[in-house]
């Protein structure tokens, strides 16, 4: 039995390949990296209408076989069967945006010239129709000599026909008109073919133009973007509350149930005070993370993200970067790891390095648990007028502090360490599209799963280790358990270093395990105070109340300022090492970010003390 045939989706960026891939494979997809390069490899299983199972791969979008970016290089090599360890695709499904034929047919001709069995998916015909464009696939079939199937990936239209066409696609002799011709001839041919295939055109592209007139307006556009970002951050705090409260109640109920069921021994304490308190303290932030990702995914799927990059280009240019850096940086608000990986679309190496180095300063979702706990405990839940909450405002200020810090660092880096020619900015602005709920749900599920898996592995392990280090050696009567423990002794050493910036021993203790992941700071604070709590106040051991009892407001603010900058995430360091091929840049990143965190926390503490807060 031979291996299943391999089908590759290939086409220009923004041809709707990913939507088509999702529609064809559903949730049966595997996302990994191509070996040696950090380009995402998406593959999945699919059963053709003939009953034949095939492997479907979604190749990175490209404008031609002559690569200008790492993504395009992968596409080019895989198609030609030159990528080590990657089987050459048996059938190409060339995806074209029906309303952008003139452009997409250029690459399509180049691909057809290879002579491989091919099928063309004329995708997003509904958007073309809405634009008043009526196309005749038969004309294209005639001109190109392969099956052309009209599809609407997001509405699942044309998928069966596409499957049938793939099943019957055969090797073709490359047409004489398609071989040995250059880019200019292809462009001329594309123009002619697109013209012939368009039956009627009523020039109704008004909706996109009107949206752009508003959203890219030199004055209104930035205001709309800023307002949207503000709404996102308010929503993250306000909308998530009922869900977070429900989760918290669930964790509390589980904690109590286990305490009452098990006999009073070491194992019970490990389970309740260690694992359930620690992991539970992080899991309750799932709703906030889901809401943040929902906005980011919707911005990407709707086509607004590229507009945001356009709007931000001027500002990014002022610190020596381009609008292209905006997309990785915005992704970094969810998590710096996909953000740093997304810098691969930046062609200029120095631009890319600068973006990688500042990406950890974007407030990632792992900081959210830390911010949320401290803000909820120390910032009063009141409004400052116009329905704007003070808590949301403080959260917004923390995000702004990270952004301003990043801009400042970029400015300095681009004039010193990563000095070079000003980078350019060339980017296609895709058509606006209503995001499909199914795709958003799938994306959200994948993100939520990654977060829960972290909670179940890294955070789980670190919590257990911390709990053991906090519980041994046992305290003698009259001595606090934390003071007596191993962890307490280590923290006492670190506390000397962080004392000048207002941190106490418990805060120092939280910083050590938080090197693994920032949100562990919350679970380790929860574990510390749970271990240290005497039996009578254990009942009311809400973390917020515990913090209020042990910290002052300037200390809390200093702790927040620390987390704006501190590079406390092993995964980010690891991905930086991989993306920059060595330890030099991750080491540099660690040093400068810790330096910034120390100065920022110290300044915040002493200013707050001076202001009498």
């Amino acid at each position: 039995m031979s291996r299943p045939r391999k089908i590759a989706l290939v086409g220009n960026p923004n041809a709707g390949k990913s939507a088509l891939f999702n529609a064809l494979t559903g949730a049966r997809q595997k996302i990994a990296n191509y070996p040696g390069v950090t380009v995402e490899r998406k593959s999945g299983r699919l059963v053709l209408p003939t009953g034949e199972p095939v492997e479907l791969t979604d190749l990175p979008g490209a404008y031609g076989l002559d690569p200008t970016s790492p993504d395009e290089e992968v596409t080019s090599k895989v198609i030609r069967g030159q990528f080590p360890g990657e089987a050459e695709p048996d059938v190409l499904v060339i995806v074209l945006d029906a309303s952008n034929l003139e452009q997409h047919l250029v690459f399509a001709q180049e691909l057809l010239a290879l002579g491989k069995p091919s099928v063309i998916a004329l995708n997003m015909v509904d958007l073309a129709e809405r634009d008043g464009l009526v196309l005749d696939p038969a004309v294209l079939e005639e001109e190109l000599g392969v099956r052309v199937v009209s599809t609407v990936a997001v509405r699942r239209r044309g998928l069966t026909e596409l499957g049938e066409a793939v099943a019957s696609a055969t090797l073709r002799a490359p047409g004489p008109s398609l071989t040995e011709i250059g880019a200019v001839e292809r462009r001329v041919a594309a123009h002619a073919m697109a013209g012939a295939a368009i039956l009627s055109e009523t020039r109704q592209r008004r909706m996109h133009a009107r949206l752009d007139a508003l959203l890219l307006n030199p004055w209104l556009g930035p205001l709309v973007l800023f307002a949207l970002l503000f709404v996102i951050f308010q929503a993250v705090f306000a909308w998530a509350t009922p869900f977070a409260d429900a989760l918290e109640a669930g964790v509390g109920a589980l904690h109590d149930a286990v305490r009452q069921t098990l006999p009073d021994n070491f194992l019970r304490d490990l389970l309740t005070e260690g694992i359930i308190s620690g992991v539970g303290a992080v899991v309750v932030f799932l709703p906030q993370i889901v809401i943040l990702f929902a906005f980011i995914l919707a911005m990407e799927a709707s086509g607004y993200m590229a507009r945001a990059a356009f709007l931000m280009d001027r500002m990014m240019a002022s610190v020596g970067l381009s609008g292209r850096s905006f997309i990785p940086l915005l992704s970094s608000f969810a998590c710096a790891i996909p953000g740093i990986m997304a810098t691969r679309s930046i062609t200029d190496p120095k631009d890319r390095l600068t973006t990688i180095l500042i990406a950890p300063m974007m407030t990632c979702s792992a900081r959210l648990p830390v911010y949320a706990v401290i803000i909820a405990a120390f910032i009063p839940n009141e409004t400052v007028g116009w329905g704007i909450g003070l808590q949301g405002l403080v959260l917004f200020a923390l995000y702004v502090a990270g952004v301003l810090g990043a801009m400042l660092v970029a400015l300095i880096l681009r004039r010193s360490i990563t000095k070079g020619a000003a980078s350019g900015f060339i980017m296609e602005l895709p058509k606006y599209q209503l995001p499909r709920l199914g795709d958003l749900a799938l994306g959200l599920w994948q993100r939520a799963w990654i977060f829960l898996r972290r909670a179940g592995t890294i955070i789980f392990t670190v919590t257990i280790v911390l709990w053991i280090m906090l519980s041994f050696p046992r305290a003698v009567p009259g001595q606090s358990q934390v003071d007596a423990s191993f962890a307490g002794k280590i923290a006492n050493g670190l506390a000397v270093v962080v004392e000048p910036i207002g941190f106490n021993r418990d805060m120092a203790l939280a910083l050590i395990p938080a090197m693994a992941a920032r949100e562990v700071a919350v679970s380790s604070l929860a574990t510390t105070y749970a271990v240290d709590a005497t039996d009578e106040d254990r009942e009311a051991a809400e973390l917020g109340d515990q913090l209020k009892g042990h910290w002052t407001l300037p200390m809390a603010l200093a702790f927040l300022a620390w987390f704006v900058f501190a590079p406390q995430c092993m995964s980010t360091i690891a991905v930086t090492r991989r993306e920059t091929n060595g330890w030099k840049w991750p080491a540099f990143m660690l040093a400068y970010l810790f330096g910034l965190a120390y100065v920022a926390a110290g300044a915040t503490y002493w200013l707050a003390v001076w202001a009498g807060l």
Partner: protein
Amino acid sequence: MTLDQQPIDRKVRIVSVDWSRLVPEEARRLQALGVDAGAQVSVSQRGVFGGCDPIAIRIGRMIVAVRRAHAQAIEVADAETLFA
């Protein structure tokens, strides 16, 4: 005249592109997007807060964002007079 000087939505045709003013990768990317002699283009949006950087240009059915420096390398002529 060059593309960056065009008023919004005026249709012009590219006469020539001074590729030597551009970084090779950027030149290739622009070519891949269809920026080359003969193509019809127009400026659809200009940069934020009254600035003139970046510029969104319409080429075929695409909107492409470029920097002013790129647009300055693109020599254009009125669409009707040249190839009408």
